């Protein structure tokens, strides 16, 4: 049963079409990854799901409801939250306030167990609660970005390049946490340039090039696909 379905989604910036009619589905409980190079349209796709960009034309259905014309805040309310590219932590808010911003769509004070869930996944955030978000290290900011998105209690979590700019040890850690979040019942759509890690983590994958889906398959099969190996896994 698919929880998210994109159908022939086009997105343009002025005259330039960044996403040229992509279709993809994410089933409940899955981790699906969208891999591709720089400027392939990955981030634009996620932004469009979150309502920051508009699909024109194209339809996006979440949980049997069209969301492609909804403003961002309505989409969050329905259970889609994103840890955006570049983390986008509110720099002059404390870690706690950043987490609270994640829970903005929930109304009222977030319950303790929501904070606890984040602190269990990312213990370091507990020690940094009153520190300004802008003063955290890159890895800590990534944890905060994911933690903040979890505070929205999403049914579908969108992750945009969570490994970007992180030390290799950290990358491993982030991906194991992504699996853990998924095991706790959250469906995940993961955008990555690190195809190796993404395909090892996901159950299915899509390859996007110049705004078009050029390949889709089970992640395990994509890992052994010659074209993927050549273009994204750095193997000859």
């Amino acid at each position, binding site marked *: 049963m698919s929880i998210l379905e994109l159908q022939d989604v086009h997105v343009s910036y002025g005259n330039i079409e960044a996403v040229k009619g992509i279709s993809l589905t994410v089933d409940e409980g899955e981790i699906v990854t969208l891999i591709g190079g720089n400027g392939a349209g990955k981030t634009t796709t996620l932004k469009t799901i979150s309502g*920051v960009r508009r699909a024109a034309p194209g339809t996006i259905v979440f949980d049997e409801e069209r969301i492609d014309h909804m403003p961002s805040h309505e989409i*969050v309310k329905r259970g889609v939250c994103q840890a955006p590219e570049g983390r*986008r932590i509110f*720099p002059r808010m404390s870690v706690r306030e950043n987490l609270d911003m994640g829970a903005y769509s929930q109304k009222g004070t977030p319950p303790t167990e929501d904070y606890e869930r984040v602190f269990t996944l990312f213990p370091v955030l507990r020690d940094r609660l009153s520190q300004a978000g802008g003063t955290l290290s890159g890895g800590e900011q990534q944890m905060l970005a994911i933690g903040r998105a979890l505070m929205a209690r999403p049914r579908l979590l969108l992750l945009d390049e969570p490994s970007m700019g992180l030390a290799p040890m950290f990358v491993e850690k982030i991906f194991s946490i992504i699996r853990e979040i998924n095991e706790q019942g959250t469906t995940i759509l993961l955008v990555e340039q690190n195809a190796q890690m993404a395909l090892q983590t996901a159950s299915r994958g899509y390859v996007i090039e110049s705004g078009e889906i050029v390949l889709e398959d089970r992640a395990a099969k994509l890992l052994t696909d010659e074209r993927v190996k050549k273009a994204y896994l750095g193997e000859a």
Partner: protein
Amino acid sequence: MPDCLTTQLPLRLVGGLTSGSIYALIALGYTLVYGVLQLINFAHSEVFMGGSLAGLLALEALTHHGAQTNAIFLFVALIPGMLAGGVVAIALERFAYRPLRRRGAARLSYLISAIGASLLLSNIVLLWRGRNFENFPATVAPVPILTLGNVQIYNRQIIIVVAMLIMTAGLDIFVRTSRAGKGIRAVAQDPETAGMMGVDINRVITVTFLLGGLLAGAAGVLYGMFFGVTRFDVGFIPGIKAFTAAVLGGIGNIRGALVGGLTLGVVENVGAGCCGNQWKDVIAFLVLVGVLMFRPTGLFGEGVGAKA
């Protein structure tokens, strides 16, 4: 030493803090709106005028019914004054700015729209109320209640300064702790991400204009109480001086608006003591030119989220 810096100084300081408090209240509106939209709401002076006029009308209605005005009536007038300020500010956002935002208009369009809205509002009041100054019904009779050296401080001056401090503190607490306040700061720091976290950006913008409008409306009533008059163009000079104060303090910064307002009030009053009262506005605008030339980020040059 000229006597403006010696014997006259305390008097000038007190006067400066009084008018500076009014500038600060108006400046907060400029700074809040700039924080979330990077837009100078040049029609904000009409918000002040609207508040002042609503206060006058409320007091006239009460005196018309034979009530003897007294100090209590200042508070009675503050309520319609603040509400009117809030309504005018929200209307400006709705009709002068939101249609432009929808179309992703260029910065200059907002400025032209602001000037147009400002002229429209002040001319409506000109046609309606005429061009003569209208007397603001007396509320608080001036009584000196404190003497510092050779200078007497009047109850009305204290009311203005204290009212400003209370309202600024209230605003600061609201922006720091309330849900809407967090939304305002999030939009000021990163509107796109704020939206992705569930913040309704249009609503945050409306609340921001409302807050600025309430404060400017209160300033309009306090101004009427202190100077005793109001009319269609009463907002013009205080409006641009408050803009100067906001820039001086660092536009987008709440504490900056407070410090900028008080500093500007003091500088122009002390300066006027030295050069003559006719130079007061010149001094204030020299400050604006000076800040823009030498420190365009102002005293506390950072975003509204920093201090708020």
